[in-house]
């Protein structure tokens, strides 16, 4: 009896998803934004989601449905609000937002750090280490911000120096040598505007990571947890799967930076944030990320445990998919993904 119930609800859920899709495409056809009754749609889906969640004893399939519905809700919410981009930027920078090492603590066990780039220094803004993910040996690395002033200075406000990128690459090569999958976490404001970073070639360090990650023979999953700031973010995000948390942002330049260059006025940051299209739904639509990870209502900082649980679910799902692929296929499909990405042009 129970199974029949689930099937019925599932069909309902699928129907909702397709309805939303139809509405979305219809609206895109009109070229109008925001005057369709998206709020009512949203309410309905949220109700549906509540029903699904209340079922309990969820099978993998039902969980996937729930996941997809949550993703849809995120997309719909984005359409309703016009200030979403700036709100999300502030959420992504929230001082209480879980940082990389919080996720390491909640999602991984037996973490042992790997220090130093073997050339110049150890960069505390980039943390790498061996760890176990649900019992499996993996490499985990990410950018780390500090919480109090002392930590912030120690972590250089989460801005890696060239040594950080070089350390990350060194650790990834170790993982490749021993066929261990890689999990990376991104939360970085952007380029490091420091004298030393330029002297020691941060551009070269980032460039090398991009090229080498593209041909790494092990699976890589990246989660953008907070700010995905330009080259610094991409330097550890040329991955088989790029997941983005609901309130994370991913951009070529910070809204402030863009505003001061394009508007010649840094206070136009809200306008710039909207124009740059930096939210998770934007990136999903533009085809630059693979999935959105939902957050607890109000943002990850309101319930870090719940946030970690949702990240864990997403990581497990994508990890199990990637595990089935042989190394050759992984590299080929990763290449293909980035080759076809962001192709917006006409050929006359």
């Amino acid at each position, binding site marked *: 009896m129970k199974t029949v119930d689930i099937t019925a609800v599932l069909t309902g859920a699928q129907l909702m998803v397709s309805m939303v899709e139809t509405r979305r495409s219809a609206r895109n056809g009109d070229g109008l934004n925001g005057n369709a009754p998206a709020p009512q749609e949203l309410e309905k889906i949220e109700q549906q989601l509540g029903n699904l969640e209340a079922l309990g004893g969820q099978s993998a399939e039902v969980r996937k449905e729930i996941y997809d519905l949550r993703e849809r809700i995120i997309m719909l919410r984005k359409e309703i609000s016009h200030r979403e981009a700036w709100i999300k930027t502030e959420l992504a920078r929230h001082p209480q937002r879980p940082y990389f090492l919080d996720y390491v603590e909640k999602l991984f066990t037996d973490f042992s750090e790997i220090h130093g780039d073997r050339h110049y220094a150890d960069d505390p803004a980039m943390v790498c280490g061996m760890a176990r993910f649900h019992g499996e040996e993996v490499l985990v690395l990410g950018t780390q911000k500090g919480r109090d002033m002392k930590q912030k200075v120690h972590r250089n406000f989460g801005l890696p120096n060239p040594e950080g990128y070089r350390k990350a690459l060194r650790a990834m090569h170790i993982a490749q040598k021993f066929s261990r999958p890689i999990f990376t976490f991104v939360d970085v404001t952007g380029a490091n505007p420091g004298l030393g970073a330029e002297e020691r070639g941060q551009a070269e360090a*980032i460039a090398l990571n991009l090229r080498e990650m593209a*041909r790494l023979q092990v699976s890589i999953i990246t989660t953008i947890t907070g700010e995905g700031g330009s080259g610094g973010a991409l330097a550890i995000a040329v991955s088989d799967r790029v997941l983005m948390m609901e309130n994370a942002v991913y951009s070529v330049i910070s809204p402030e930076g863009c505003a001061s260059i*394009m508007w010649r006025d840094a206070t136009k940051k809200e306008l710039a944030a909207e124009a740059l299209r930096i939210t998770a739904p934007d990136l999903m639509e533009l085809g630059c990320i693979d999935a959105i990870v939902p957050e607890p209502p109000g943002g990850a900082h309101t319930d870090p445990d719940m946030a970690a649980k949702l990240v864990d679910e997403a990581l497990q799902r994508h990890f199990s998919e990637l595990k089935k692929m042989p190394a050759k296929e992984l590299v080929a499909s990763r*290449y293909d993904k980035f080759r076809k*990405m962001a192709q917006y042009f006409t050929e006359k």
Partner: protein
Amino acid sequence: MAWFKRQSGELDASGEKKIRTEGLWVKCEGCRQIIWKKDLEENLNVCPKCGKHFRIDARTRLANLFDNGEYETFSDNLASTDPLKFVDLKPYSERLKRAQEETGLTDAVINGRGTLNGRPIVISAMEYSFIGGSMGSVVGEVITRAVEDALASKRPLIIISASGGARMMEGVLSLMQLAKISAALAKLDEARVPYVSVLTDPTTGGVTASFAMLGDLNIAEPGALIGFAGPRVIEQTIRQKLPPGFQRSEFLLEHGMLDAVVHRKEMKGYISRALDFMMPAAS
């Protein structure tokens, strides 16, 4: 009573000036001396007095390197669709249109096939006067196709960079071009096809942080501004004046970030020399 009568009628200002000196002379930004423009052009736009390298356009760069200035362009029909419908003080679509009219190009890069001292070669040259040589979806795609062309034909690849970095008006799509080109270069690297990166004034931002720094050799013209973060941003952040020559070619050479700083006149010879080293001798 006046001795002379003032002639009636206005002075005629409509006729063409007979003598024009405008545009014949330029002032060198390096040594502040006045140079006859023809002298400058004959010297490949390098100041004959102080050696300052003036910025030149992509077409001139291609003509300087290819034998007899002859080459065949490819992938020259791609144009941006303004995917974000980006509007700042001016719509991006208008900026694009203006740049296209001014340069006669569809975007900020030209791909060319030809020979360099008799050796078949592919060159991709960036055009700084097209929205600051910035890299969006089109530039990323065109350069990737140059890499793929070099890979398929096993011809060495030269990319001449002149760019402010990723194009903001295409947002994160511009960022993804860094990954795309770098991934293509990994394939070229594996196939052992030579790639020489030539950095010219200026090469900054996302272009430096991807293909410009990934050459088998990275060489630069003298005095070129090369960096990731712009000098003004750094100055504002650290609240100090930057040392003179910071982020210039010679500074990078000193810090081990470049293989050579090469005068424009010697560029062709240097590249040819490097390719002799990298390729089997032509039979």
